[in-house]
């Protein structure tokens, strides 16, 4: 089986990894790069556990060929905390709300949720927007309630922070 040498950026670091052409990004992340935070629940698009971000957009790594990530920036849950200097506000909120029970769906949900909040750009998301953004990620433990609470909590904090900094800007002018 011939291997290809694939170059991509993973969590801000340039990596090169050898893998056969028929390997998925999920396999390469988990078994070649030891980024085990990305989970596998079905391996064919039905559950969302394998969600990562590619160039900032949530995608399913089980349905992405590793070669498709070449030259692109992949963010996994390991990188989410790094981005925010250790612990992302979503991770903190999920922890406070007990939004992770078994935690198996959580990495994927965090990456979908982060993209939503980024797009909200300081506007508070509604409950429906949260549900819509996370609707490709199954969770079997929580009944979703605490996850929604946690995401809304961060959304609210971000909106407050955005309003405050807008206020400061206005003030400065």
């Amino acid at each position, binding site marked *: 089986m011939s291997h290809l040498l694939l170059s991509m950026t993973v969590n801000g670091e340039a990596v090169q990894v050898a893998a056969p052409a028929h390997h998925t990004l999920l396999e390469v992340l988990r078994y070649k790069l030891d980024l085990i935070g990305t989970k596998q*629940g079905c391996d064919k698009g039905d559950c969302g556990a394998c969600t990562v971000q590619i160039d900032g957009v949530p995608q399913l790594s089980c349905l992405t060929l590793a070669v498709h990530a070449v030259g692109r920036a992949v963010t996994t849950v390991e990188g989410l905390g790094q981005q925010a200097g250790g612990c992302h506000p979503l991770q903190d909120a999920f922890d406070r709300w007990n939004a992770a029970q078994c935690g*198996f769906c959580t990495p994927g949900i965090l990456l979908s949720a982060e993209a939503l909040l980024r797009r909200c750009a300081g506007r508070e998301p509604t409950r429906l927007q949260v549900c819509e953004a996370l609707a490709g990620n199954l969770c079997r433990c929580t009944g979703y309630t605490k996850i929604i609470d946690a995401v809304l909590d961060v959304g609210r904090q971000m909106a407050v922070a955005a309003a405050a900094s807008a206020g400061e800007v206005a003030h400065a002018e």
Partner: protein
Amino acid sequence: MPSEDRERDWQLGKVHRKVDAMERMRGVARYTDDLKLPGMLHAKILRSPHAHARIRGIDLAPALALPGVFAAVTGQDFKIPYGIIPWTPDENALAVDKVCHVGDGVVAIAAIDEDTANAACKAVIVDYEPLRAFFDPEEALAVRDREGTINPYSRKGNVSKHVLLEFGEVDAELAASDLVIEGDYEFGGTTHGAIEPHCAVALVEPSGILTVWSATQVSHYLHRELAKVLELPPHRIRVIQPPLGGAFGGKSEPFDLEFCVAKLAMKTGRPVKLLYTREEVFYAHRGRHPMKMKYRTGFTRDGKIKAVDARTILDGGAYSSFGLVTTYYSGQLLCAPYAFGTYRFDSTRAYTNKPACGPKRGHGSVQPRFAMEIQLDKAAVALGIDPIDLRRRNDIGANTQTINEFRVGSNGFLECLARVEAASGWRERRAKLGYGRGLGVAGSTYISGTNYPIYPNDMPQAGVQICLDRSGRARVFSGANDIGQGSNTMLAVITSEELGLPIEDIRVLSADTDLCPVDLGAYSSRITLMVGNACLDAASKLRRKVCESVAKRWKVPRDRVVLAGRMAIDREDPDRHVDSAQAFQWAEADHGLLGEVGSYNTPKDRHGEYRGGTIGASPAYSFTAHLAEVEVDVETGIVDVKKIWIAHDCGKALSKRIVEGQIEGSTYMGFGEALMEEHGVDPEHRGAHAGPSLLDYRMPTFLDTPELAAMIVEAPDANGPYGAKEAGEGPLHSSIPAIANAIYDAVGIRLDRIPFSPPRVLAALAERRRRELAGELSPHKPGPDHARRSA
């Protein structure tokens, strides 16, 4: 067993960060499939494409000849049968002479990678002789001959278990009842759907010790069965349960993969991993038993239950699993929260050529609860009594005994009813909701662990060991399996409460049979009560030692010393305090190394004195009330569940949000079963699985799930740690009948069969319309005209 002389509740009932959530969220926790060992091989299992067939021969040679293939095992390597219930060992790790369902394991092969293992499985030649397969339990039960007997170890044809118990003169009481409600109910099969697929890894150390890491919720039972089947002494085996990605009962017994990795590791001398595909998880199953239930319930004019007569057929699938217990549970767990005048149940579990059924959250009792709560609703309508009032009138109360002689301690059921009634606006709103909209209520109860372990023994049901060290930290060792429900955090909360340490100063090491005391595992909602009590026992012994040493140095009586907030404090002079590390050092100087063990055994006076009277008896019972609001689209048959209010009596919530999370997660799971989930095989297509994927087995998404309002009720039980009872399974039960009853309230139809799929709703509406036109029924209730328009 609250301990008397401590600062009350400095941790209990608060909101806690879980001890192990952050590592999971950062992607550093190693679940089973995240383990990678040097030289590790990957194994795959070749499965039967036949629902029922004799194996005439297996040719492994073509597979073994492939480069990269290391070893293969077949049923011949596992001739000793096992079974989670010691009385019914009726399955082998791989099929020995015959296969009993599509997906039954036949050969396991270890190879350099999964691709090679798959290719090797394809190369194996199995010679099958297909046999007549049975997919209908009643048809299977009718067969008596050896040829038609599905399970090779069965001695009673296709009867897996039969239980008939009668308490009081049921027939006489039915005859004397003012109202008898008769109903036929059908509970379809459903499965757990944990997002993490099963996975196991085995390693044989040079010393010969076998270590098996497995995504299991019962490491101790796995340990025992591995020893039995592999014929190894238990002390040469170590079982470790890594962090687990959900279980819900689906990982509560040994599966083929654990035996296979162990044997293959022994054969090859290399570590071996086996990860199920999602499809294989569906074949492993052990989900909720489909049940056909025939109920007759007699009532007095004022709504009191005089008699309950239940006949149930359980569709068990190919193996026993927990089936013996399930068959009892299908009757034994129904006897609260209502007092029954008399009761009889007659339950028969059949073997069929399907993946085996077993325990799913709310084991054995979700199905009868569904039947019973609809029976009550029908009676309420017939008698013109408010459904909540009817339930109140039958409340069994606290500190009492059920008709089947189980002792009930605390009981918060009436408060549960009151809470959902008030929160939903039942009194004001119900009568005003027009046609198409409705509210429905249902109640239930569940055990907090069973009084007797699965295999008879006189040893404690739970044990915990705690060590304190001079840095001011506690280590808790427990065999219990945290499956996501938060049991490790529960142990930390109790330790924290007793020893005054913040949660982050406590390390919980669990579910490793080498390091931890035996625990029976995460099933029957036993951990908080049993392991919690054992933990409380150990922690309070340590607390006494520490307080004593501090008191000695302060020259005050011991009970003046309080441990809280990482300090030892003088209750009467709060300015006097030392930090925990100092206190522990004093205690270590006085007592030597600070370690204590605690254990828990159940009280043995809770059950009935008859054969089977121990099965279902529990130290304490939780209670739940669900109230659902639905909107029914009478043209499409689609049921939209708007909101579910849930009040659950867990005795004492040790950690508030974790308990709420259990209530929400349980209710969600019930909602999915009620409306969309269906697990089964296709008899028209040789018993192939009806759709073994998370696409075809539809679990509700974020957009499908109704708003869930969880309310905690606390009726502390003398048998629970600080009064705590279970919260992980009870709050599933009544969600399903609450929805069914709400549908009746909305449009006047009874759905006695799950799931409440749109075609079934439409069929029931058409039948009602027919009866209205025939003058047998009057229109259900007023409402906007458009709501009535039919397809």
